[in-house]
């Protein structure tokens, strides 16, 4: 593998493109591979690799996390959620639990799970008790939730669904007129499920080169080479550099199951706002499993206004690729994985967390002279 990566790197350098170039990725897994393999330091200086909207935990609306906390605290239920969600902070007075983790410490029955099948098992273990599955995630994670319901979930299992589609956020960036990138590396595992075709609009509607990539450095470098070559030749298309796994149409059965169980709706992204057709909601046929219908909402409109990032946290800017993680004034100072301020430092998929854990220690907030932080 290492050899192939080195070959791609040679090819990429051989393209001889010297104008500044920004390539965006929209997947925490891609960002992690790029950071760990140190790809930023080996590619030519004029090429910037920008992490974009690739973290479902980071953009999960604050009011949904708040809702999950309140359901767990106030209703007679067991709440299960993917482990990453437990430490995500909401904006509440100091006296109230700020996260699911703190609600758990305050006595709520909250359990981290790694799979929808664990939610089913938890519900089956005590049919007399309601289990609420707080399910946030992009398509790759939402598909198994749909599959769980399509197969037939126990009556006492409810879903608080906060699923999101990845491509509408990229569409929003492109429609804004200032996308901030010249080429796109599309997410391999989202495309595995949904099919690479979802990303054709990037090329067709916006004339921006795109390539689906896997997670090894050679697959990522192959995708970077592809989009750079497309830029050089002025011939743009959607390339698939992860064809071993990503098939035309993706996983048709998984897509069918999502469609059977869920509708695509306009949805709120934390710190970003409503993005059209970017979220999933349970269809009427699955209303009996819908936690949003079973419980009255705790997240009233006044809460929606506070539903942004914690004060001082620039997560939304990071998610949109407008700034790098270490350009947040709190990065590495008030905010570290040990004491995270924002969701981008909490989640394993968050760019701040990934940059920190791969050794990036310099805070480069524009408002501060670099030498003042001694880094």
């Amino acid at each position, binding site marked *: *593998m290492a050899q192939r990566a080195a070959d791609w790197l040679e090819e990429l350098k051989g393209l001889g493109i010297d104008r500044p170039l920004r390539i965006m990725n929209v*997947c*925490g*897994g891609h960002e*992690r*591979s790029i950071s*760990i*393999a140190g790809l930023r330091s080996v590619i030519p200086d004029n090429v910037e690799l920008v992490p974009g909207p*690739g973290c*479902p*935990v980071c953009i999960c609306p604050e009011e949904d996390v708040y809702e999950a906390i309140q359901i767990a605290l106030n209703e007679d239920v067991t709440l299960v959620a*993917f482990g*990453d969600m437990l430490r995500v902070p909401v904006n509440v007075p100091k006296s109230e639990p700020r996260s699911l983790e703190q609600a758990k410490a305050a006595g709520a029955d909250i359990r981290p799970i*790694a*799979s*929808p*099948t*664990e939610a089913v098992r938890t519900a089956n273990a005590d049919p007399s008790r309601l289990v609420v599955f707080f399910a946030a*995630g*992009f398509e*790759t*994670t939402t*598909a*198994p939730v749909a*599959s*769980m319901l*399509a*197969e037939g979930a126990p009556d006492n299992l409810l879903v608080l669904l906060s699923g999101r589609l990845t491509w509408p956020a990229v569409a929003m960036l492109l429609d804004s007129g200032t996308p901030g990138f010249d080429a796109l590396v599309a*997410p391999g*595992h*989202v495309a*595995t*499920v949904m099919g690479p075709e979802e990303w054709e609009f990037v090329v067709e509607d916006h004339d921006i080169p795109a390539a689906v990539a*896997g*997670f*090894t*450095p050679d697959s990522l470098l192959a995708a970077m080479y592809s989009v750079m070559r497309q830029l050089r030749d002025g011939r743009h298309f959607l390339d698939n550099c992860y064809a*071993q*796994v990503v*098939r035309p149409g993706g*996983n*048709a*059965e*998984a897509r069918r*199951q999502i469609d059977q169980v869920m509708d695509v709706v306009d949805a709120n992204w934390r710190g970003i706002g409503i993005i059209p057709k970017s979220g999933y909601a349970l269809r009427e046929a699955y209303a009996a499993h819908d936690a949003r219908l079973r419980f009255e909402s705790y997240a009233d409109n006044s809460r929606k206004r506070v539903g942004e990032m914690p004060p001082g946290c620039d997560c939304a800017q990071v998610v949109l690729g407008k700034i790098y993680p270490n350009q947040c004034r709190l990065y590495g100072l008030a905010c570290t994985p040990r004491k995270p301020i924002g969701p981008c430092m909490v*989640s*394993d*998929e968050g760019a701040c967390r990934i940059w920190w*854990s*791969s050794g990036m220690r310099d805070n480069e907030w524009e408002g501060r002279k670099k030498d003042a932080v001694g880094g």
Partner: protein
Amino acid sequence: MCLAVPMKITSVDGYQCTCEAKGIEREVSLFMLQHEEIEPGDHVLVHVGYAIQKVSEQEAADSWELFDQVLAEV
């Protein structure tokens, strides 16, 4: 959360199967791959306990190499 891991199937029971990777065993749902022929010895890409795609042995090996690195970091 969106990173899937390749695993080798050791036994199949309806839509449930047991998978193995690097000495770790997991119960995995095949419900999203019900249109595929799946048997012990096959490799699948597993995400949050669900197989999302069948993959070749070579692809599995390549990804494991990557995960070794990732696991060493986190």
